[in-house]
């Protein structure tokens, strides 16, 4: 018993350090005074020097703002298309071409990013020659490219949420006199809002940290944040990137922890209410 206790404890710590040691070292070095990332300048550290520099760096701030806009547009577009696809797959029963649609929407999940990026680039170039649009590759082409691969995730999330719901909810609404469009807005949509929200966040994250596809379809004036980081690191790791990454980790961690706490509370309240309802029945 004691032996196993020791074993699982070691396993836990090894696993955790494997996952988080790189991040911790990055956070620590973001407070380093030295320009050399690998050398800890003990007398002058910790310092917020690189954070200050970061906020004076127009290139990074501009790229971050562009990335946020692209991610938000991508997430919104992916949610609209993905929800429609998920709805059709989960609710419209068997129809001609269903298997094809199902396969095609989920294909981007397994497609190598390099191929997705390359084929989209070829598409945009061909389109430009044929129709004159897009004149240059910019934020719009990046957004379209991001929507194509992040839509698949939204589709899957929405489809599985709908699969967990009884068809008869929508039938009941029809039976009570609501027309199909009304059934969608009053019953179906409220039920899948959680899935749509998590799909939106998922698509946002995918777009936010994509380098490979963006690399193919970006133009000279549209450099996203991950692309800036990537090019900076190629010239040698600069400490302001550490600072930037630390801020991003902080934002993500706050978000994850808050939503976990909120969901846990909701679940507990629901459990309690259900227990009370069951007890009242006796």
């Amino acid at each position, binding site marked *: 018993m004691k032996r196993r206790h020791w074993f699982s404890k070691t396993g836990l710590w090894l696993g955790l350090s494997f996952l988080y040691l790189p991040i911790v070292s990055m956070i620590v070095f973001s407070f380093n005074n030295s320009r050399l990332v690998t050398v800890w300048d003990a007398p002058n550290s910790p310092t917020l020097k690189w954070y200050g520099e970061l906020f004076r760096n127009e290139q990074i701030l501009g790229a971050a703002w562009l990335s946020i806009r692209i991610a938000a547009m991508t997430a919104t577009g992916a949610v609209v298309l993905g929800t429609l696809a998920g709805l059709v797959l989960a609710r419209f029963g068997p129809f001609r071409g269903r298997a094809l649609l199902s396969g095609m929407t989920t294909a981007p999940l397994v497609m190598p990013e390099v191929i997705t990026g390359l084929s989209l680039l070829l598409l945009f170039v061909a389109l430009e020659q044929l129709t004159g649009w897009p004149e240059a590759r910019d934020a719009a082409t990046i957004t379209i490219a991001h929507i194509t691969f992040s839509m698949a995730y939204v589709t899957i999330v929405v489809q599985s949420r709908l699969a967990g719901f009884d068809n008869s*909810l929508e039938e009941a609404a029809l039976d009570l*006199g609501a027309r199909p469009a009304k059934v969608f807005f009053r*019953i179906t949509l409220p039920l899948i809002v959680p899935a749509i929200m998590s799909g939106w966040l998922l698509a946002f994250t995918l777009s936010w940290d994509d380098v490979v596809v963006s690399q193919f379809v970006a133009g000279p004036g549209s450099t996203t944040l991950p692309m800036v980081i990537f090019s900076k690191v190629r010239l040698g790791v600069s400490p302001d990137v550490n600072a930037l990454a630390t801020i991003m980790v902080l934002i993500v961690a706050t978000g994850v922890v808050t939503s976990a706490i909120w969901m846990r509370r909701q679940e507990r309240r629901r459990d309690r209410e*259900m227990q009370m309802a069951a007890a009242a*029945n006796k």
Partner: protein
Amino acid sequence: MAERRNDNKKEPWRDPSAQAYVQIENVTKRFGDFVAVNNVSLKIYQHEIFCLLGGSGCGKTTLLRMLAGFEPPSSGRILIDGKDMADTPPYERPTNMMFQSYALFPHMSVAKNVSFGLEQEKLPKAQIASRVEEILDIVKMREFAGRKPHQLSGGQRQRVALARALAKRPKLLLLDEPLGALDKKLREQTQFELINIQERLGVTFVVVTHDQEEAMTLASRIGVMNRGEIVQVGTPSEIYEFPGTRFVADFIGSVNMFEGQLIEDLPDRVRIRSAELGGVVYVDHGISAAPGAVVWAAIRPEKINISRTAPADAAENCVSGVVKEIAYMGDLSIYLVKIASGKMVRVTLPNTERLSDHERILWDENVFLSWHSSSPVVLSQ
């Protein structure tokens, strides 16, 4: 229940000139190669509680869903109030349905669930509110109006589902296993409430159930279904006392079936020799079958007497055997008696007196089983 409705006025199906409210004409439903409902014709009259009874997969739910408009028939017609429903979508039919899963909208309160249907009719707000209150009063759920479905117990959800289906005052209410999810005690109580509500509001009910007890208690008439077909339609007592086929006799209640040959076939009596019984069954009413035909004599367990001594006229309608099993159920006891042919015969006795163990018939006793000549039902298929 059936007895109460026995005056002719309340039995419109006995009146050939009566207008049926629901007419199902030669309706068939196929899913691919599978025939779920096979050429069913039915007439259901106003103010009836009509039960579709059958095992799982017999097509009863499919038939109900066709009435609601969720499935189009592959062939045949459905008329409600004289109007062909072929092109009427569910949201325009004069029917409402109570779903087996209740299908309460989880994101709406009880009151919102109930008012949903009324809002679709674009009634004024005040009228909707008063109708919701009224219907919640009927199902005794008014104090729970603000709750969400997950805050209700199973029985309460069932009431809300009923209230929601009744709120639009449909002429025809379709109920899919309405009491299936309730425990036994609550189910019995709710059965009678359903009947009360139905009589008060004058709605026509079509109930789908696999529970024969539920069908017996609720129904004005029962349609027994098997493999997509209606095998028999009748009042609960007709179905129980005069089953038309072995399937119906066996499905409704329990029955002892003896295979035999007709040896005497007169208009007012028949005799059946049964090897399975090891004797002759004498029946005091005539049947229509060819002499010498193979028939089955079906005798209900409660119509068989059990005694230690042979009855006076033991030549016919009597058999001896050994008690093999006794199940004491409180209100009655079930005996399984093994007769000479090896067949087990089921007998039920009401426990009308409190007997001590030495007065009661016990295991391994030799007993005589006998029945009145009016008790057997002779079935030829």
